[in-house]
């Protein structure tokens, strides 16, 4: 039964593909995959926004959006009075974004101003192509999938630059430069944090990395990478870098509405603004998906007796968990200063990620240690992570007193 549930999406796709003539089938095959990704993650994006607003509302001791119900349609004989807990809010937002006036500054570089939101959404969607969503569900099986994912992600920096420069607004350009400095700084720990996984598993293919985390010790301890010392450290570094890469609070300096009046988004309105907003969430979702695949066991179930739930549902549950965590962080932490932000990356995360790389190499060299040596393996691996963390943390925070503001 569960094997059948596992391949239902593939059966449905093949059924539709067979309706078309033979020479068009490859095209239809890919178009269906693209359409499904767009639909699923478009809907996911819509409900992430409403979940974020409601959760942030609760964190701030208010209700959040709860008024948007269904409009009264004249073709229907009845009118649903229930507000549906405000769950139709994203659709109202979409209508609002589509009907708003699109203002383009007179002095702006019209071509770049138009291209920036288009590019950023297109590039942020590319990452979804290689994520293994389930045991049998992977849009494109690539040998170098991990490299592809990061290559696709780098192009968003160009789009942010285009937005900042094309707007011809000094706040926009300033914010774009800050955004680029931030993205480049955090790309390094982000990539370095996943290299130990590549070392240990020995492949760049995401489906093989997800498959390598299968199985349980003693029947209930899953072999996810996050439950190893190097994997745990890598996961934490990955989480921080992913937060910064997707411009989320506490790393939302490029937007910084109180200092830079929303930065490179200043001159965007209407649907173009919505596209930037969408790209931010797509990027966050794709990075969370990568984190789930690499550290949290991908589509694997946490316990053997829960394997009857299809693997793609497990993937989506973990993905939603990651997003909830990011919303929680946004509601809890304050925004960093730009110097704190770059220092955190270059003085703390990059050295730790490099040390963690050595840790991954140690783990990859000692897979056949058993018994007492197995305990030693875990102990050494944990020590390689914890001792530098403590030393670096003490040394970096020792001489830093709170900043005094003379002119504030």
């Amino acid at each position: 039964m569960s094997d059948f549930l596992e391949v239902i999406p593939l059966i449905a796709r093949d059924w539709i593909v067979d309706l078309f003539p033979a020479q068009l089938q490859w095209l239809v095959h890919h178009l269906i995959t693209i359409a499904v990704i767009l639909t699923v993650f478009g809907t996911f994006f819509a409900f992430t926004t409403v979940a974020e607003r409601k959760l942030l509302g609760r964190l701030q001791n208010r209700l959040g959006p709860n008024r948007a119900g269904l409009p009264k349609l004249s073709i229907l004989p009845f009118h649903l009075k229930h507000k549906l807990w405000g769950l139709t809010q994203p659709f109202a937002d979409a209508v609002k974004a589509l009907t708003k006036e699109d203002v383009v500054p007179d002095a702006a570089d019209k071509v770049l101003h138009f291209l920036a939101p288009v590019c950023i959404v297109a590039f942020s969607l590319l990452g979804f192509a290689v994520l293994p969503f389930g045991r049998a569900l992977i849009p494109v099986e690539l040998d170098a999938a991990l490299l592809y994912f990061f290559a696709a992600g780098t192009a968003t920096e160009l789009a942010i630059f285009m937005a900042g420069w094309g707007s011809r607004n000094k706040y926009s350009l300033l914010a774009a430069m800050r955004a680029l400095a931030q993205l480049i700084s955090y790309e390094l720990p982000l990539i370095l944090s996943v290299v130990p996984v590549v070392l240990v598993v020995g492949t760049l293919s995401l489906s093989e990395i997800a498959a390598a985390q299968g199985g349980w010790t003693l029947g209930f301890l899953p072999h996810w990478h996050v439950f190893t010392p190097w994997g745990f450290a890598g996961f934490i570094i990955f989480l921080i870098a992913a937060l910064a890469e997707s411009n989320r609070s506490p790393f939302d300096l490029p937007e910084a509405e109180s200092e830079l009046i929303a930065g490179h988004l200043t001159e965007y309105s209407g649907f173009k603004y919505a596209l930037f907003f969408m790209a931010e969430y797509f990027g966050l979702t794709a990075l969370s998906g990568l984190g789930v695949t690499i550290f949290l066991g991908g589509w694997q179930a946490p316990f053997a007796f829960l394997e009857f739930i299809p693997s793609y549902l497990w993937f989506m549950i973990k993905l939603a968990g990651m997003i909830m965590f990011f919303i929680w962080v946004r509601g809890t932490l304050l925004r960093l200063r730009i110097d704190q932000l770059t220092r955190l990356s270059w003085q703390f995360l990059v050295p730790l990620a490099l040390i963690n790389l050595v840790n991954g190499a140690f783990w990859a060299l000692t897979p056949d240690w058993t018994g007492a040596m197995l305990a030693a393996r875990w102990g050494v691996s944990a020590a390689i992570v914890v001792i530098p963390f403590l030393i670096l943390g003490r040394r970096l925070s020792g001489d830093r007193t709170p900043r005094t503001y003379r002119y504030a």
Partner: protein
Amino acid sequence: MIALAIIALLTIAAASAAFLLRNLIHSALLLVGAWAGIAAFYLWAGAEFVAFAQVLVYVGAVSMVVLFAVLLTRQGATTAPVEYDSLKRAVLGFITAGGVGGLLFGAILGSPLDVHTANPAPAVSVKELGLLLMGPHAAALLIVGVLLTVALLGAVVIAAVDKPEDAP
């Protein structure tokens, strides 16, 4: 073959537009487009790893260096002057461009042209590529790494000039 023609045309169009436009930012962005076209060519030729590395390094990193350099060195106007500075510089420019062009043409004409159809599956897997780079070609990799580090340090030394008024 049609795919190759389209990729080549787009790459050449982007590259030629890059040096014909007077707006330096537009030129830089079009240059990035040309680099992406080269990556597409690698992909067409079945070299997945090289293609993604090309995108990661050129479209992601080198493009930023180029854009930052343009923004930091040009104050105010980002359009290049149309006239040449002096006759000497123009002549030297033509000699350099002609020399590089001649060298490249000679190399292209001298290399045996092996026409083959697109090969979707990579001939060498990423793992084999990695083992090759770490085994027989480790020396070359190390030399390239040292060279790049020296270049980076040199850039820092040249750029970081201590001016007396900068001291706190």
